[in-house]
């Protein structure tokens, strides 16, 4: 969704996803953009991939890569898919643009056996200092938009996301924090030093509370 993305082979988040996913698994990529991630998964892991993308251009570019993508709004739901019909459902750098994050994530957990969510972290120090010192909504490499034209209608921090996961009775299975698209963040707290976070999450339906 963001404008300045590095080459796909430098995308560490994609590499991690590639390692998580088994050969021949069924993948649903929500907000698949030009289909780069699905294409990578296709070539490296021979997955059966499906994508949902809101823009016509994204559908064209995905088709050029040989992918099957449905043009649509993720917010309209995944109700057509049966329970656990995908091995992995991925929401990569798209959480910040959707209107109904809770609904979408609950649906992802329903239709997928595993769920990956990644998003830009508004708790990143650059973001904080920008706002503190300049007094304006920060623009970063990941989020280069003006407040009035940004597709990223939701700003959230890593802490916000973790609260959300806890309150909505989900569980983090794996977590990854990135300095940028190509490097992991070495320093902690991640909410201060990571510009982006990625999680594998699951529902806690089976856990009595």
């Amino acid at each position, binding site marked *: 969704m963001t404008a300045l993305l590095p080459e796909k082979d430098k995308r560490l988040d994609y590499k991690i996803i590639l390692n998580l996913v088994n050969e021949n698994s069924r993948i649903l990529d929500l907000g698949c953009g030009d289909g780069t991630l699905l294409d990578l998964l296709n070539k490296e892991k021979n997955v059966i991939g499906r994508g949902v993308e809101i823009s*016509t251009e994204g559908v064209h570019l995905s*088709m050029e890569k040989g992918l099957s993508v449905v043009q649509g709004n993720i917010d309209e739901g995944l109700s057509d898919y049966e329970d656990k019909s995908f091995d992995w459902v991925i929401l990569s750098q798209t959480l910040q643009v959707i209107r109904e994050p809770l609904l979408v994530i609950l649906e992802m957990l329903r239709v997928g056996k595993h769920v990956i969510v990644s998003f830009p972290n508004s708790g990143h120090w650059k973001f904080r200092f920008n706002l503190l010192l300049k007094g304006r909504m920060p623009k970063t490499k990941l989020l280069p938009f003006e407040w009035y034209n940004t597709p990223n209608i939701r700003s959230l921090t890593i802490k916000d996301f973790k609260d959300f996961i806890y309150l909505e009775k989900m569980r983090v299975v794996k977590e990854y924090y990135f300095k940028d698209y190509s490097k992991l963040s070495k320093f902690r707290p991640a909410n201060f030093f990571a510009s982006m976070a990625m999680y594998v999450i699951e529902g806690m339906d089976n856990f009595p509370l």
Partner: protein
Amino acid sequence: MIQANGIYLHGCIRISKKGNALSVEKSKLKNSAGYVETKYIEIPNGIKLDCGETIAPLSIAYQTYGELNKDKTNAVLIVHALTGDAHAAGYNKKTGKAGWWDIMIGPGKGIDTNKYFVICSNVLGGCKGTTGPSSVNPETGKPYGLNFPPITIFDMVRVQKLLIEHLGIDCLLSVIGGSMGGMQALAWPVLYPGLVNSSAAIATTTRLSPQSIAFNEIGRLSILLDQNFNDGNYYGGQPPSKGLALARMIGHITYLSDESMQTKFGRNYKNDKPGEFLKPEFEVERYLHHQGDSFIKRFDANTYIYLTKAMDHFDLARNHKSLKHAFKDTFARYLIVAFTSDWLFPVYQSKEIVRSLQSNLCDVTYCEIESAYGHDAFLLEIEELTRMLENFLKNSFTKSKI
């Protein structure tokens, strides 16, 4: 970008007169499937229809472009809409007329005849060479007229299957159609699962909305009320031209959109000023009359009745528990395309198809093209469709499952 000028795309192709014969400009000919002619096959045993009756003998008019490869894996069937014919691409040598989808089918075009063997046939019930109500009924020696049995979209597909078999092709790479052609494109894999690799259904539906049935009905009624209709026995006499022209005019309103009418005609007068009180005065009126008048020269009123009836009754989920169930195990890759301003085959109907396909985990690509052209968009949004069909065919070919 081609200007919206209704269904008549060939209106923009210039034909120069040389001697007596019409010849097409060389550059245009070179970029097309060239001069083509309609071929015919006769099937003496005919075909048994959904209604239980048999039509025999059966004649099928068709054209082909490009070459069938050795493995016979590159055959693409084009299925025309309500008033189309087998002449989809290239130029007719006698009339110089371009095929109805020449802009899409040809060497290097969206449906590339250098790569694919493209077939297009006139539908069952048509009036362009395939057996229909204007054909001679062997029992009476006269045209069938209204004695022609009612036909269905599935019957049309069965006839196409006979043609494919005749051409020695077991499996189709793809079936591509818009509007009524899209209905057939969707019926193909349902009727012949495993025999069609992919299906592209453009601006279509698995069942018409009541609004579209309503428009079809007043179209038919205008033909039935024409004094010349004579219970369909008008062959050899005066055909019900006024009724047929009116049906076409009604049809054309539904093919456009409010926005495209605004852009195309506005409130302009056809002669820059008001005219006679009861004569067409506005541009939009002139357009509709023009469409009506040219239609009656090329179309049969009974065919109009039979084909619109076939569309009205079409329900892909018929004989199935649900639409989802109908698409189950069809083994095909699908491309569904809808246009935002199409109110005859609205976007929600395409979405319904996509949802049913998705719930079966079928391989489906869906695109909703932003367009002001209304239903006509499927013949006018050339750039978008070219790109889409080119990739879709390439993907169907390289990832062939059959």
